[in-house]
């Protein structure tokens, strides 16, 4: 017998799960991404590098900047371009804006209704209006940063190889400095709120992240030194899904907030670090549901870090000089931490600056196997114990814990 | 009220009447009696109707200024705003500003014959002229030549039939041309065989002769109609200065600012809203693009 969930709601994109029941027990669980294929890799083939980040941004709206930054980093590495600190700081600021926007959306509007037992945040707002407003406030700052750095709340095209077309002004940075500080209390409150989450899903055994907090030159894992994705991660296609599945050392692994905290806690800002220490034992169990708690802690990190970056940039003064980009033959990989985990853009570019090969692996694709394992374990736990409705609800919550971005996952490429 | 020409005055819709499936007649009165008293207009002028929060659009006044205490607008349902106003019910309030435009030179024409040539919705502004002329009795004889698609499309049908029957006593000859045959039309045609026929409006000129020295023609209809009617009139030697027509263009302001209704070339430029909407055929000859 196969039990099928409805399509997941309160996640980005379209997916569902099938639970295979045999001999009175759960035999297998399949996570089906039903979002149609999107062919982004093909779209960029033969294109001039300059236009590529704008197009790649369109892979996903929630994390468009992660895509454009990863794309830009990949291109710059292929050309051997080095950009000055202010450019990297601004890009990081953009990624932080994205993290704020995405985590606030996910925690307050998509997960919180589960905690309080509502179908959505709009209906939840009737009783818990303050909470929804707090979430929207954090989200709004995130979007403001995305607008500033990226050029638009969604799919801006301001992030370019070599720098930016539009540079933020002093006033813009002052606003960010002020607001990031002002919102910190809300973020702290969210840690307390999402600390209520109970453990469910599987316990991850492997964690992978980039070697820098929000972007990196390489990947790192719980038991390895730094490596390139091509060296340790295999992927293969599935007949029942438009997304592919990846494994590390033959095993599922986790990317995202929880992995970042566990692998890179020494990079955290002071308050975020304190929170991490406080909840460390819990987080270290590796239950995927604690990803939500990790996200809340990351909100604190993001606000503190945004504040710091704005201060630094104000102190340094923005030069606003772009680095000239000369196309040359080369290959480069851009690693970025999208809000939901590691994102890879890999390009080979020819001497004229045209894309010859491109491969994109998104966090949800990395997490695919882990999601299936989690669903499997959760289904095993609940099948026969709880009613079918309750089980399906819990399975949906399990998927939601990953903050999956299904749109992204449907087009990682082999060029 | 303030001096702001874009401000509109509240007017209550007293009555809404279906004239045809597409046209409704709105009878309105200003809420503020002072505004009502100051609202003096000439046949051929128009107002701007303001549905606050949605937009504005120009509509000719179709009642005669001789009828006091209210004014009437005949509105065809064609697009966004007009569809919306067709949903509005009696008793509701809309904004009105105006009257705008030059209107027909009714004073100058006193003592003369008037030929009103209406096509379709063109009947609306000419109805104002018609009743003004009848009410004041200052004109020699009035012809109304009205071309319509079908029986159902005849605007102010009751009035038209009434005038077909009793018009002569008011110095008024009404003639009607219809394009689509129907029992009702045939019935009408049988009743008034000399004045109702199947055909287009120009067919109604057949058999008519005018005293060209003492006659004015007033035309309003769809853009394609003008050329044919004017030829008919010129054939009868009517001077281009005695042929009046009322025109329409897109308008945003109605007071000669927004530029949409500007027509002409380097030698002559006209604002339809301010210099018109009534023009002579001579204006059309000297300003390209007017018709």
């Amino acid at each position, binding site marked *: 017998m196969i039990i099928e969930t409805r399509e997941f709601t309160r996640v980005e994109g379209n997916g569902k799960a099938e639970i295979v029941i045999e001999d009175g027990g759960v035999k297998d669980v399949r996570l089906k991404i039903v979002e149609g294929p999107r062919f982004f890799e093909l779209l960029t083939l033969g294109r001039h590098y300059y236009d590529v980040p704008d197009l790649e941004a369109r892979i996903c709206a929630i994390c468009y900047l992660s895509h454009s930054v990863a794309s830009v980093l990949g291109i710059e590495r292929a050309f051997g371009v080095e950009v000055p600190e202010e450019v990297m700081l601004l890009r990081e600021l953009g990624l932080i804006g994205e993290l704020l926007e995405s985590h606030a959306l996910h925690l307050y509007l998509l997960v919180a209704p589960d905690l309080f037992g509502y179908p959505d945040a709009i209906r939840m707002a009737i009783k818990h209006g303050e909470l929804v407003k707090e979430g929207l406030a954090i989200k709004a700052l995130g979007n403001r940063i995305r607008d500033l750095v990226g050029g638009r709340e969604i799919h801006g095209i301001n992030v370019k190889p070599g720098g930016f077309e539009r540079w933020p002004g002093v006033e813009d940075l002052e606003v960010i400095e002020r607001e990031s500080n002002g919102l910190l209390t809300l973020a702290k409150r969210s840690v307390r709120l999402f600390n209520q989450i109970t453990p469910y899903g599987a316990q991850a055994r492997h964690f992978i992240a980039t070697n820098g907090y929000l972007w990196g030159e390489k990947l790192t894992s719980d038991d390895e030194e730094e490596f390139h994705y091509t060296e340790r991660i295999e992927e293969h296609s599935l007949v029942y899904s438009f997304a592919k599945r990846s494994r590390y050392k033959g095993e599922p692994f986790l990317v995202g907030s929880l992995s970042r905290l566990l692998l890179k806690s020494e990079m955290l800002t002071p308050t975020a670090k304190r929170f991490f220490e406080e909840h460390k034992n819990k987080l270290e169990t590796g239950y995927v549901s604690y990803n939500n708690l990790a996200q809340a802690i990351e909100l604190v990190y993001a606000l503190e870090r945004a504040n710091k970056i704005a201060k630094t940039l104000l102190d340094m003064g923005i030069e606003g000089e772009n680095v000239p980009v000369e196309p040359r033959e080369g290959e480069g990989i851009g690693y970025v931490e999208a809000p939901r985990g590691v994102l890879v853009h890999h390009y080979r570019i020819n001497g004229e600056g045209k894309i010859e090969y491109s491969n994109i692996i998104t966090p949800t694709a990395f997490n695919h196997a882990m999601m299936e394992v989690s669903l499997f374990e959760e289904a095993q736990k609940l099948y026969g114990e709880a009613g079918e409705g309750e089980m399906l609800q819990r399975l949906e919550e399990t998927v939601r814990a990953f903050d999956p971005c299904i749109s992204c996952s449907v087009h990682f490429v082999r060029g | 009220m*303030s*001096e*702001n*020409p*874009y*401000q*509109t005055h*509240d007017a209550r819709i007293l009555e809404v009447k279906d004239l045809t499936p597409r046209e409704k007649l709105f009878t309105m009165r200003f809420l503020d009696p002072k505004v009502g008293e100051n609202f003096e207009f000439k046949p051929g002028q128009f107002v701007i109707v303001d549905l*606050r*929060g*949605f*937009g*504005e659009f120009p509509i000719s006044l179709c009642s005669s200024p001789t009828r006091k205490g209210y004014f009437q607008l005949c509105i*065809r349902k*064609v*697009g966004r705003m*007009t569809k919306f106003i067709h949903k509005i019910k009696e008793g509701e*309030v809309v*904004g009105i500003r105006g009257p705008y435009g030059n209107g027909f030179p009714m004073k100058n024409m006193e003592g003369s014959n008037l030929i009103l040539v209406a096509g379709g919705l063109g009947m609306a502004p000419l109805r104002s002229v018609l009743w003004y002329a009848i009410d004041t009795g200052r004109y020699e004889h009035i012809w109304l030549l009205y071309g319509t698609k079908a029986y159902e499309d005849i605007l102010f049908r009751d009035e038209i039939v009434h005038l077909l029957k009793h018009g002569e006593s008011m110095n008024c000859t009404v003639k009607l041309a219809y394009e689509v045959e129907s029992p009702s039309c045939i019935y009408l045609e049988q009743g008034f065989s000399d004045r109702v026929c199947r055909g287009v409006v120009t067919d109604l000129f057949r058999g008519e002769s005018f005293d060209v020295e003492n006659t004015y023609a007033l035309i309003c209809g*769809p*853009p394609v109609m003008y050329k044919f009617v004017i030829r008919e009139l010129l054939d009868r030697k009517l001077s281009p200065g005695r042929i009046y027509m009322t025109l*329409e*263009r*897109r308008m*945003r*302001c109605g*007071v*000669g*600012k*927004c*530029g*949409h209704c*500007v*027509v*002409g*070339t*380097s*030698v002559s*430029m006209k604002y339809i809203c301010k210099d018109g909407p009534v023009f002579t055929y001579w204006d059309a000859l000297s300003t*390209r*693009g007017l018709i």
Partner: protein
Amino acid sequence: MRYVKLPSENFEGFFESLKLWGNIYAPVKNGGIYTFQPVESASEVDLHYTRTMLPPKKFFFRPRETLLMMEGKKWIEPSDGEKAVLFGVHSCDIHGLKILDKVYLDEPMDPYYKKRRENTLIIGISCMPDEYCFCKSLGTHFTMDGFDLFLHELPDGWLVRIGSVRGHEIAWENGEVFEEVTDDDLANFKEFEEKRAESFQKELPQEGLADMLDLAYNSPVWKKYAEICLACGNCNMVCPTCRCYDVCDRWMDAYKAIRERRYDSCFMENHGLVAGGHNFRPTRLDRFRHRYYCKSYFDPSSGYNCVGCGRCDEFCPAKIEHVKVLEEVRGSLK
């Protein structure tokens, strides 16, 4: 006309004193263009600018502005009483404003335009033409009115013409920064004007222009240019005498609306469209021609609707040149 001299060393003091009259807006370089922007100090101003992208009409007839705001079911007017000083306006643009005055101050007056005109001082400044200017051939390179003060560059300062009572008051209240004009100054002024007169590279002969164009209504030249024109409307937007606007009501929240107007362009397909789908200027050719006719319309009381500022040429992506089109059309008559 009254004349005084503003020596270079007093320029800053004079500039500062203008702040008493309102917020100062002046031409500032911004990337590859100039724009009129609020400025705090004289050093921000580019006194030798060629032309701003949007002409000073933007202060009186705003690119976008709220005409009315809904309160309950009534419209109320927004209030805007800003006092401003428009510093550094070129002669052609002053002529442009005079043409706009003809429209917006004609009865019934546009109250928004009128109020801002009253609340704004105009300080003109002399200029040197670049490759786009053809104001001299239209007689708009010099203006006798339409300003409060007009500054003409001299080697050691400025010859200032005083054009209004308010201008006079400024000169009066700042007596200490001005000097009497000397013969040397006049000689320098004359020299500047002569040099300027010789620098024009473009000319639009006015003689018989209006009637020739009318006669050339069916010239193939119109068609040739209409084919490369993008109908993007940029030329309208930057024109100091274009004044078409569109109006739109918008919802600000669930129950409040505003009525907003914004610049419109006669290149838009709907400009001549009326209900029922009839379009009085259905093709790009019609609209292209319409703009040229509108700009070349000769009003006996105010002259042409074009002041020769060169903006439409500078900002046309298709590089269509106003003078060239008109000359070719006229030429095609022979």
